[in-house]
């Protein structure tokens, strides 16, 4: 590969446009087979201020070209994250963004304040889009005013990069995108999972104990691509494309559609090296097209 794949997302310089999506890479210590040179960065499993047990099983179900999950943001809480993971991340040569979750605006701000300045924390991905928690989560992402307030609360407490991860479960995603941009978001991650459901006809009950879950995988890719493109048209800040990306071609579609970078998620479950394959394939595509860098890739992203 000759092409330069590095990209600047706001103040963050990434060596690769391919990042690991939240919830599919744990805390970065559990995917040993991946060649990390392919990794532009990692977004941690979503964290709350306090530890959470998560939802009862069954938590996952495979669906046509995808999967539903309802994990319920099981996690150790911010103290354990600072104690156990941040020191490890501080040794790594790629940035780690912490996916932060809260039940209230104040809690979002408190989380950002607790993590700001901790060595190893490279930035935040503000999750206002988890479909599997009772309080908070997607509620903030459904309403432009709540989305803006959550963004502002985090922005006030940190100078680190703040990305905001949006839910697809809205009527017009560009309204939410503009609202968080106006409150100082550095980038937008688009999109989180789609709410879905699956019924077991033997028990005539939902297959997930949580009743509903978040749909991910190739099944959502065209939907996610459209939404990421819509966001890219609506805002001036960088957009990180997410949704069913498993191959270099999938990632290139998001990049051409106006995304600065992408996150690979569900594909990592089946192949721990998926990110490597996507990274190398993007480089090969640019080489074949005679592009010297990702920046030279022509985009299809007319502004609204």
């Amino acid at each position, binding site marked *: 590969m000759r092409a330069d794949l590095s990209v600047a997302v706001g103040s963050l310089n990434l060596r690769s446009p391919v990042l690991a999506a939240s919830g599919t890479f744990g805390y970065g210590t559990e995917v040993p087979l991946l060649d990390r040179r392919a990794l532009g960065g990692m977004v941690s499993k979503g964290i709350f201020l306090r530890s959470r047990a998560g939802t009862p099983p069954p938590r996952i179900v495979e669906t046509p070209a995808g999967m539903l999950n309802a994990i319920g943001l099981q996690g150790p809480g911010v103290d354990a994250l600072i104690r156990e993971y941040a020191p490890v991340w501080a040794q790594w040569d790629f940035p780690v963004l912490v996916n932060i979750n809260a039940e209230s605006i104040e809690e979002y701000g408190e989380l950002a304040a607790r993590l700001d300045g901790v060595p190893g924390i490279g930035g935040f991905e503000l999750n206002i889009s988890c479909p599997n928690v009772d309080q908070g989560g997607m509620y903030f992402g459904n309403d432009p005013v709540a989305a803006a307030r959550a963004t502002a609360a985090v922005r006030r407490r940190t100078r680190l990069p703040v990305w905001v991860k949006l839910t697809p479960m809205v009527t017009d995603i560009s309204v939410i995108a503009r609202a968080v941009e106006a409150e100082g978001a550095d980038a937008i991650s688009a999109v989180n999972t789609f709410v879905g459901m699956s019924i077991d006809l033997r028990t005539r009950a939902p297959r997930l104990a949580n009743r509903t879950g978040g749909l991910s995988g190739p099944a959502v890719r065209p939907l996610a691509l459209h939404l990421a493109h819509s966001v890219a048209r609506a805002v001036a800040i960088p957009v990180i494309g997410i949704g069913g990306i498993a191959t270099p071609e999938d990632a290139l579609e998001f990049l051409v559609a106006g995304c600065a970078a992408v996150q690979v998620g569900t594909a990592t*479950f*089946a192949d721990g090296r998926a990110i490597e394959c996507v990274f190398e394939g993007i480089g090969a595509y640019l080489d074949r097209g005679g592009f010297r860098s990702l920046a030279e890739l022509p985009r299809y992203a007319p502004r609204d």
Partner: protein
Amino acid sequence: MFQTDAPLVARRQVASDLWVVAFAAPEVAAVALPGQFVNLGLGPDLILRRPFSVYDVTDGLVEVLFRPVGRGTRRLLELAVGETVSLLGPLGRGFQLPPGVRHVALISGGLGVAALRLPARRAVETGAQVTWIHGARSASQLCQEWLGDRVVWATDDGSRGFAGTTVAAVSDGAAGGIDTVLACGPNPMLAAVAERWPAAQVAIETYMGCGTGVCLGCAVPLVAGGYDRACREGPVYLGSQVDWPALPAQLHYEVA
């Protein structure tokens, strides 16, 4: 942990609805421990890998035992010799044979036999006495392969051996000499094992996503509270650790 494209070497039928397939995966075969599992990628149209207990390891081969119930297992049945699957493993934390073990009882229900052949082999190697209590719905569904000094057959319909559950098949007199119980089978059977032998080591089956600890899909509810991961802390637990009522009793496989 290795990820390798492993060719199918052999397949044999061991009960009316159970098959064993052997894959050439020498690196995995060399290090796999009893109770560990491998995660098989069975084609690009199956989004998730499928977890299978390591049934046996011999001469660089990794064997898994399965019942064809869904798309992944049917593909295993159709796979031709020489065709490959993506094999990831070994994964998970397996059975422990304590030093000085004298009499091991293996209790398997139906498909649960899949996790017990390798521990049986290791127990025999330690010189312990090994009794295998082999249960299934009916005689034709009993896996014909077993290892050890003695086998006790148990069928729900009484068509072979003891008529009733595997747990009931062990009399109080027979149970007296047993110092280690290893079990695998349907979760209600494991709950009954755990009730009678709280120190039993049980291999639990759950729906699973990644198999490596990141997705948190394979949650096992614990008596101590919260959940941990069948793929990392498990799939083998002490019977007394598991919050059995909170664990789904039955897994249905034909999901997609």
